[in-house]
């Protein structure tokens, strides 16, 4: 049913339709509304049977999910940013143990400086953990992806992380077509664990594996993710068949047929980019967009197919590897090896910096004229940076840059919703 609803609530409602049996909750913005709403449903008895566990940390949240999943329950949790990093060890562990946990990641920057707003640094930090990472463009897709995520996770026995932009999506109220229970039940069969802690059939899960087999274990995990590259489109297709809605999949192209420049991005910024692209198209520039839904496994072949005909690829991403550059851009470049495509990296929207249509239009204007450098920080306040650089030059140590920059900006107080 199409409903005007907050993104977080839409996720909670959808997760509930997936009948999770154990949900672990630990508050961190901007994920909190999701878990609160699930908690209400459990408390009311609308979601039953379900154990809703208020844990003492994200590390515990993922750990509880690990235990629950290993004991045969469908387990769900949600987190963001510092929370994801705090549970990092358990995130890797869940994947290593092959436990099909589904987690919502309300993408948020990572401190210091502490910052509660959106970017993709958190997701990028765990990209090598063995989790499948799916990025949602809208709240509708975010909701739909959760249903697909449980299906995918349990089919392959791999945990899945649904990434949705914090605040931008989680706190946005917009129309979402909520699924109905019968559809979800038909689409998502009950969880049949691949391994289970059962007194009648005991096994030891989580052995220590030495050099003689560790590489093989990792290789097999890789093969499973490659398997996911085949399953994700099928699962999305079946979802389309059931709902008539295109959600999920690996990559999505928009107006790229004849494009000279293709912008690649992930998440909600794709909407703003599409608006900007339409406007640039109106100005006669041949520009298109490719959105990556499946970041892990990375669909190199599909990306290559989607981009290879464009001379220039602009990768716009909300994260970067300090001292190197774009993370997504690196993967795209790898996928495009030998095609001759020129890849430009644009880092934008860090720590919640708004990515405006106007800024994008300017960016695309320049791109169309071949004026982009290899790495660009969109809307970087050059003046502030220069002042800080000058200060740093004057004295080798000048205190934390963040404080200095804030002083330059005249901001005396940061309104923050801390953890």
């Amino acid at each position, binding site marked *: 049913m199409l409903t005007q609803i907050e993104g977080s609530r839409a996720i909670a409602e959808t997760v509930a339709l997936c009948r999770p049996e154990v949900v672990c909750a630990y508050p961190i913005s901007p994920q909190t509304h999701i878990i609160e709403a699930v908690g209400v449903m459990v408390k009311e008895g609308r979601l039953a049977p379900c154990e809703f*566990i208020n844990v*003492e940390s994200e590390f515990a949240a993922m750990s509880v999910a690990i*235990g629950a*999943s*290993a004991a*045969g329950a469908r387990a769900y949790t949600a987190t963001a940013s510092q929370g994801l990093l705090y549970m990092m060890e*358990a995130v890797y562990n869940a994947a290593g143990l092959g436990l099909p946990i589904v987690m919502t990641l309300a993408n948020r920057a990572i401190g210091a400086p502490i910052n509660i707003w959106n970017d993709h640094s958190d997701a990028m930090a765990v990209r090598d953990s063995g989790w499948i990472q799916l990025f949602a463009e809208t709240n509708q897709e975010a909701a739909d992806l959760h249903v697909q995520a449980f299906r995918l996770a349990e089919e392959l026995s791999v945990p899945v992380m649904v990434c949705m932009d914090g605040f931008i999506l989680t706190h946005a109220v917009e129309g979402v077509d909520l699924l109905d229970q019968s559809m979800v039940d038909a689409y998502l069969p009950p969880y049949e664990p691949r391994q289970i802690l059962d007194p009648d059939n005991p*096994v*030891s899960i*989580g052995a220590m594996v030495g050099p003689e087999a560790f590489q093989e274990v990792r290789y097999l995990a890789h093969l499973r993710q490659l398997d996911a590259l085949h399953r994700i489109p099928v699962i999305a297709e079946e979802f389309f068949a059931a709902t008539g809605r295109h959600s999920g999949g690996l990559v999505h192209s928009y107006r790229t047929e004849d494009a000279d420049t293709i912008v690649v991005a992930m998440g909600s910024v794709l909407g703003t980019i599409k608006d900007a692209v339409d406007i640039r198209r109106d100005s006669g520039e041949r520009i298109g967009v490719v959105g990556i839904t499946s970041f892990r496994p990375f669909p190199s072949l599909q990306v290559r197919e989607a981009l290879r005909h464009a001379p220039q690829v602009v990768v716009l991403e909300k994260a970067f590897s300090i001292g190197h550059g774009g993370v997504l851009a690196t993967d795209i470049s790898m996928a495009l090896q030998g095609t001759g495509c020129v890849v430009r990296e644009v880092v934008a929207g860090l720590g919640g910096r708004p990515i405006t249509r106007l800024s994008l239009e300017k960016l695309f204007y320049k791109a169309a004229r071949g004026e982009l450098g290899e790495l660009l920080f969109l809307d970087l306040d050059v003046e502030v940076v220069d002042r800080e650089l000058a200060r740093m030059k004057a004295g080798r140590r000048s205190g934390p840059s963040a404080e200095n920059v804030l002083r330059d900006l005249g901001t005396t107080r940061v309104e923050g919703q801390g953890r």
Partner: protein
Amino acid sequence: MTKRPIRFYQVGSFAVGNRLLRDDERTVQSDPHRSNSIDSGHRACQGCGEALGARYALDAAMRATQGQLVAVNATGCLEVFSTPYPETSWRIPWLHSLFGNAPAVATGVSAALRVKGRSDVRVVSQGGDGSTVDIGFGCLSGMFERNDDVLYICYDNEGYMNTGVQRSGATPPAARTATTDAVGPQPGNAFGQGKDLPRIAMAHDIPYVATATVADLHDLEAKVERAMSFRGARYLHVLVPCPLGWGSASNETIHIARLAKETGLFPVFEAEYGTVTSVSKIRRRTPVEEYLKLQKRFAHLFGKNPRPEIVTHLQEIANRNIERYGLLDTADAPLARHATTAEVRS
């Protein structure tokens, strides 16, 4: 006391079994058909107290649950020596996740079992002192505070033995470890530090907290059984000497555990809902020196440059325990005949 002392039967109350006893008066360990939750072929050191403690506790839990048991294990010696691919020593369903999260993983298992309607299956979470009092402390406290239906068993060997004997929050004062070497004016671990986890556990007002050693099997098993009679969070702290880390002879493991109790250094008691309900009285009071001298980690207190004042300090700790828990039948019970009164100040 939970343990029922057996009316005289030669070795009724102390030995593992006794051909003269009724089956129900014998320990689980005396049963030739015991679970052997942890099986032969594990790679624990010779004389490992932890391997022994784990079998004692889990076999007792298996009996108490009619075999409906799942175990979660923190990283550590026990985990490493029991499950090196491709061999596992566990005969019960067993899950290892991480060093610091065993209590939380157990919470998850317990929740899953409840939601699946399998509340007959009980959950034990276990780890060494490092994973319990240090790295996993947050998760443990959380599990306690939520009163999750988990029995957590800490096998306390007073240090990080898996990594080569480093200090933990459970390492006793003066003990030498790789990170508290026996050098300088205050050799070994510092005084005035460390965590008394059983008492911290009691502060959570959970249904059941108990301590035990591998030296008193009847007591340990009775406590496991008692623990299993409660729902909710339970904590059992078992002292398991480590021949490697303590520098003791491999055959001394049980003897040393016994002395830990008989000196008063390791009080053995149980508590329900935050209140101590019984203590295991000292049977043959022993000066701490006898306990310390069996262990190389305390060797710097004796020998060529003895440190009697440090030994005295340790004796004072034992005395305080004796007083705090009332470990003697009468306040002025004499030390065993080999004790010298000068060494024990009341």
